[in-house]
């Protein structure tokens, strides 16, 4: 019988078996990322990776007013996440605990829009909100009132983001709430806890893994949002992703776009790591 560890061959059986997947991960995931990072160190407006590396792009960004775009992205992502948490928790609670056999139907209703392109849905909102559109047109013809159009304002951008990212908060949250064993709720109540105390002491901490995943997922997605600001906001605000897009398209300054993308990754990555450190999912699940 052959020895399980053929040290002469260098790779263990496990490593050999993992090799195809590792290669796939490197090519599919690491390579594009590394390309972006490498580009960020190329001289501005160059189209290859052969030039001498430079920090010019980063210097340009810090000298420019890109902080405005970063600010918008962070602010709107934070607002979106906060609003979604408030909106989704009651729905998630209902889907996990109250609605019973209606839950799958509700899930379907929240899922179906995902099959329609985000841009199409956002244009739907435009038709709804635009002057003489569904909302204002109806108000005008039925009640004779003509309020100012709210289209192309930051508020509508937020509305759009909340609308688009709702499922990404709702489903992990629903999972989180349904992971709370019902008897722990009953036990807490039996031990004298009021409904609010049950929520605070048992419900919330035990559904935290789902909530955290929802928060992180929607935050990361919302920081990367672009269509809402472009379509619904009429570019009254310019998120960082739009900045990156301009750099890669009209400006044809790939290194600048790459540097912006790298900075965004660093900022978001740091935030996510800080949150994960503060709310370690494993610890929340009691696996310390």
């Amino acid at each position, binding site marked *: 019988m052959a020895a399980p560890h053929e040290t002469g061959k260098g790779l263990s059986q496990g490593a050999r078996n993992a090799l195809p997947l590792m290669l796939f991960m490197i090519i*599919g*995931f690491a390579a594009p990322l590394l390309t972006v990072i490498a580009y960020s160190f190329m001289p501005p407006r160059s189209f290859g990776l052969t030039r001498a590396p430079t920090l010019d792009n980063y210097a340009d960004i810090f000298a420019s007013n890109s902080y405005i775009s970063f600010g*918008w992205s962070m602010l709107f992502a934070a607002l979106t996440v906060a609003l979604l948490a408030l909106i989704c928790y009651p729905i998630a609670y209902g889907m996990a605990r109250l609605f019973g056999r209606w839950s799958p139907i509700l899930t379907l209703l929240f899922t179906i829009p995902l099959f329609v392109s985000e841009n199409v849905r956002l244009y739907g909102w435009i038709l709804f909100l635009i002057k003489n559109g569904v909302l204002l047109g109806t108000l005008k013809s039925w009640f004779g009132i003509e309020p100012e159009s709210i289209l192309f304002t930051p508020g509508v951008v937020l509305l759009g983001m909340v609308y688009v990212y709702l499922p990404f908060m709702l489903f992990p949250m629903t999972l989180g709430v349904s992971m709370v064993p019902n008897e722990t709720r009953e036990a807490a109540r039996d031990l004298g806890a009021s409904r609010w105390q049950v929520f605070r002491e048992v419900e919330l901490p035990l559904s935290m893994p789902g909530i955290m995943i929802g928060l992180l997922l929607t935050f990361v997605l919302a920081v990367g949002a672009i269509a809402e600001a472009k379509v619904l906001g009429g570019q009254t605000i310019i998120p960082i992703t739009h900045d990156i897009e301009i750099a890669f398209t009209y400006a044809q300054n790939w290194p600048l776009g790459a540097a912006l993308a790298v900075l965004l990754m660093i900022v978001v990555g740091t935030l996510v790591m800080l949150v994960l450190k503060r709310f370690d*999912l*494993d610890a929340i699940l009691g696996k310390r």
Partner: protein
Amino acid sequence: MLKTPLSRRNFMQRSTAFAAAVAAGAKFTTTPAHAAREKELNILCWEGYNSAQVLDPFRQDKGATVKAESLTNDPTMVNRLRAGETKIWDLINVNNPWARKIMAPEGLIKPLDRATFEPYFDKMMPAFKAPYKWAMDEKGEQLIGMAQRFGPYCFVVNTDKVSRKTAEDQGWNLWNDPANDKKYGVLESDDWNVFNICCIAGFDPFKVHNDDEVAKFTETAKRVFKGAKVVGDIATMNQSLVSGEIDFHLTGGTYSASPARADGAANIRGITPNSGPMEGGKGGIVWIEITSPVNNPELSPLATEFLKYVQDPKVAHTVAFAEGTFNPVAQMGNKECFDLFTKEELDAIQWDSLEEEVARSVEYDIVPDYDKLLDIMTAAKKEASAG
């Protein structure tokens, strides 16, 4: 106690695998097939050439696989070739100066056989008679592309709010009138916005600008974007004009207004100012698309076939009215082609004023300090968004 423990590690692993799959998928789809290229053709173009109406008859006739990708600005397309995609594409369709001034000198495109293709120019409108400047290289020796769609591109008004006469008379100064704050939109077409902000600032865009002009440009860009109610794509602009959200918008012309006009909104009209800061006091800019064979080491033989195909009067009419955008085509100089256009179609492309608009316009050209101006404009846009 917890029946389905979902650990962070687990979640991360799954997410990473998913992301990798997506990234890999994206990579594979853009990988060119290295099979025989007899029966395949890849076109990089502006919206219109990628429509099924244009491509399907050609596909059927040649039994070929034709892929077309549409983009909405010239620099991106040219840079795709610069970044090595000459191996992928067979034809590139961009605005006039890029073939002659950029792609030909950089060796990104290949010349056409003059004897075969020049006769087509003779059937076009008089202005396109061979040798047509933008279809030739700088030395005037090589034919490097074919002309088809063209159109004036300045701004668009709702004539119910601002009359055509007022708009043509006032021209670019519409944006210098503080009373128009928040009454207008800006089409998200940043290369053209650079040209047009130059015009508003009062100088010719297609030259190197001095410091005073750059300062004026900076000030103007900030003002224009601050005053804009909405910045968006063509659909958003048309919708906003029709609904009354805005009265007029910067950057636009037949290319952008024609879909709305064809839809019955005759009050949406592309305007070419009577006068402006361009050479000879001209106020407008007109673009002409040039379609050139890419310098592909394995160029598909179908590239030249396609160029001939779109010269056919019927196909030219289809190209003019391909889905998404409707435009005049040079082939309308041929009566056989012109007769295919209905009165409504001529109305949609503003045929009534086309000749005078073109006469008041200069031809789209390269802005030597475009990069600098674009950066200034991008920054101005962001500053406007900060309130």
